[in-house]
């Protein structure tokens, strides 16, 4: 399966995707769009006039969550945007599932995150900081209490 078809299949799970490019001032700019599979990439529609799309580096992502901000699902693809006969096509180079996926993908993600954390601390030259578990637990209890009081009639 090509990266394009894998990405197109994954994006089918979301009502729309988010395309991000860099604008003429050097800032990222994102639009909601649909991305339809084409043999060489994904055709982006609509392309609003205000965004002044130019061929160049781009990313395409999709994400979703439920009412409790859970069942998180997200995919991300880095690539480039090319113009073809008046339409813009996203050419993916990478595809990754950044949330959701199988248990194997989760374990792999978890291991990568632990490694990345160790690397971050080593590069910053700091020891593993102590996490204030009691304060975090209190923040959760406090949020749980305020949510349940909001639900009372």
């Amino acid at each position: 399966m090509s990266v394009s078809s894998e990405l197109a299949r994954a994006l089918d799970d979301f009502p729309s995707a988010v395309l991000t490019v860099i604008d003429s001032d050097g800032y990222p700019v994102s639009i909601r769009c649909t991305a339809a599979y084409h043999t060489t990439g994904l055709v982006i529609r609509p392309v609003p006039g205000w965004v002044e799309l130019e061929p160049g580096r781009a990313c395409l992502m999709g994400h979703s969550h439920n009412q409790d901000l859970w069942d998180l699902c997200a995919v991300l693809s880095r690539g480039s945007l090319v113009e073809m006969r008046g339409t813009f096509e996203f050419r993916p180079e990478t595809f990754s599932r950044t949330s959701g996926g199988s248990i194997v993908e989760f374990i792999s993600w978890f291991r990568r995150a632990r490694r990345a954390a160790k690397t971050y601390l080593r590069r910053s030259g700091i020891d593993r900081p102590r996490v204030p578990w009691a304060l975090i637990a209190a923040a959760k209890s406090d949020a749980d209490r305020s949510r349940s009081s909001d639900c009372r009639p």
Partner: protein
Amino acid sequence: MSPIMPGTPLPLALAEVFINFRTAELSTIACDGTPVTVEVLPLWQPALGRFLVTATIGLPHKAYNARRNPRVSLLYSDPTASGLDYPPIVLVQGEATVSDVTTWDDELAECWHAVYTKQPNGLHAKGRAGRWLIDWYFVRVKIHITPTRIRWWPNANQETPPLEVAA
């Protein structure tokens, strides 16, 4: 571009989006110039005229990117669970600053409260083993975003020209 100063009046519809949306799409720029967009749970700090996003050091790429290139954006485009009917889409572009590693301060206290309020099953750890496994998740860097440009689409239709908050 100049920052939008704290106290700049915002339309009520935008304030409602910043308070009630569960997520926004944060875009940073990677070292090869590719924009990278991920979903985040931002905290709006109206008194300070900025937004706060935190990153665990286990998923540090947005922090690395924002340190290297402070130009970032937040797109508020997914109203799921916001309780708002027909909210606008809002695009905030701005300049980011990235803090040192931290595990607790007043801002993080506010962030964790927001996380657990909006995400009741949000990750937390009980027991020594669980805490040892997951402590990296609670070690954070703060990314403060000072807006330089805010555009919005009242009907959530980005095909139409946006409205813009005057700086």
